């Protein structure tokens, strides 16, 4: 009986348990216009990758707890001292010193606006979001960069105030746990599993 592949870190190494791939037969590809001659074969493959978040792990853990973390360069010798980065950057892009982690949940709740957006009717394979997807780039007062995310409710407009919501129930531990709604949206309007 097959089971989902699961991984833990123990003694500094990955420990794998369960099934990480399944076997499928190659199938011939034939040319229907030319006597069904052989052209090639299909090569089915189903694999599971293992991936570390490294120094960004605390950002993704925090999303599941309803917090939006960012980082800040505190190096007094850096020309970018005081710059706040969202997306969360482990190191300052200028001095490469390790940034300090800050909680910017309150700033996001009060001072976030849509810098630009895109409503996209299409997706690629393995997409987990409902379509159309309302991509938004969120600008925060006092933050030097502009976060890419998606609008969970409503229709986006440039300059529109938005507030973060978190998928705290059954989180995915991915960037999909963070989304946004128009400022003023009430808690009872949020889909099940999401909260401010």
């Amino acid at each position, binding site marked *: 009986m097959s089971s989902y592949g699961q991984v833990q870190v123990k003694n500094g190494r990955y420990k794998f348990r369960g099934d990480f791939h399944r076997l499928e037969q190659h199938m011939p590809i034939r040319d229907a216009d030319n006597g069904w001659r052989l052209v090639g074969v299909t090569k089915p493959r189903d694999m599971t990758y293992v991936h570390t978040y490294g120094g960004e792990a605390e950002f993704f853990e925090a999303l599941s707890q309803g917090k939006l973390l960012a980082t800040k360069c505190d190096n007094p010798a850096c020309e970018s001292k005081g710059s706040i980065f969202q997306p969360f950057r482990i190191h300052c*892009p200028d001095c490469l010193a390790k940034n300090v982690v800050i909680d910017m949940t309150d700033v996001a709740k009060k001072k976030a606006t849509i810098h630009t957006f895109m409503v996209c*009717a299409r997706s690629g394979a393995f997409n987990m979001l409902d379509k159309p997807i309302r991509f938004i780039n969120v600008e925060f007062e006092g933050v030097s960069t502009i976060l*890419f995310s998606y609008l969970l409710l409503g229709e986006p407009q*440039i300059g529109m105030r938005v507030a973060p919501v978190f998928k705290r129930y059954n989180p995915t531990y991915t960037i999909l746990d963070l989304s946004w709604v128009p400022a003023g949206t009430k808690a009872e309007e949020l889909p099940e599993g999401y909260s401010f």
Partner: protein
Amino acid sequence: MITFSERQLKTPKFMRPVYLVTAGQSKYARAIPEKRTEELCVDALTMAAELLGLTPAELKRYIHSCYYGHFADHFGDQLLGEAVIHDRLGLDPLGNIGIKSGGATGGSTLWEAAKAVASGYSDCVLAMGWERMDEVPTDEGNFLIASAADRDWESPMGQIYTGYYAVMAQKYWQVFGKAEASFRRTLAEISVKHHGYGRFNPFAHGGMEITVDDVLMSPLVADPLRALDCCLMSVGAACAVLCDEATAMELTKDTKNRPLRIWVTAGSHTLRPADRRNMDIPLLPNEAPDQYKDLAKEFPGGERYPGFTGFLAARMAAYYGYRMTGITDPTEDLDVIELHDAFTISDVQTYEDIGVRPYGRGRDYVESGDCYHTNPHTGKPGKLPSNLSGGLIGCMHAVGASGIMQVFEIATQLWGRWAEIHGDKKRWEEFGREKPEDWTDLQVKGAKRALSISHAGVGSHVTATILMDPDHLLKKDA
């Protein structure tokens, strides 16, 4: 970085002149199930040899090292595909290396090849690029392309790269385009132009006779971009051969290929647009220090540079390239260009990044008719024709080959061989395509200098390749 040191802004310099002597390409199509990738590369190299009146075996005798552009290993399901191609071209045991920089892979491959000759390491090199995008279903293809975005912060969102790009298009559309219906029609005009030029190119698979209304009524992909605003997804290969002066003179003696001086420069910017920080605009030689002081007043929302409206990597590639070669005004100094028209709107953004028009004024390049082979308003030659190949919208986008296809096209213009190569009825028949009855010669008469821009995704890598007839240089020591 948001500020640069003088060392970082040094004008690049080759140690010795580098020449482009020949180039070749395969047929391009959405799918080519009858050929393996290496067969397409053999087609390209064979054509490059034929343009010099040589057999492939004769041309290979000159080659000293090889530079291979192939972006997506996972599309081809073959790591070290470069080694496969190199072996099938019979070029072992020469040194070779693979180069990948997304949509700019072709341009980056030429960048590496040119530096190998300029440094003296090799006297003759092969730059070959290819891509195979027909061996997965479209939605899985979109997934694979989305892998070029940040896998933790972007790709999980829809697995659709168009969406990550289109937020930038939306910003440009609203800020510099002011969301005007007239600007939307200008974008459509670019698609009509590129699909139209593609009709006269036997290598192209996007040639179509369409109208602005056809573009405006094509399916919506990501507002304001519609299906006919987007580039093609292609299979094919292209190559170029670069040499030092002595080898170039020997190889081109008694041929129609005049050796052309070649320079390649490069710029980069963050993989995630989200990481772009505000900075001053690096100025090109045809821009004044106070030129953009009122930009945000004129275009509210345009306060940030490059923000989501420009491509800093393209600006830097032009910044280095123009200074390296003595270009002061691209519209005056160049005769023909090929730009990376991934989308109609990115074409307009690039006009501004490379100084064909100032920031905010890109649409004028199209509306004035300057970008056409023949200006539709005056009936006279366009001032700086662009994408006469059809570009990525009307010719092809086989990623690793695209930047080299562009250089093949501008080289045929500078050799004065455009009509001979694109009008050859045998070539149309060999590719299984019908030469249009209204086929038109798009040779730019007297073309001596040309530029191509090769661009990756949301602007992470961009190269500028400049070709010049050696008797028409702009700077003696370039």
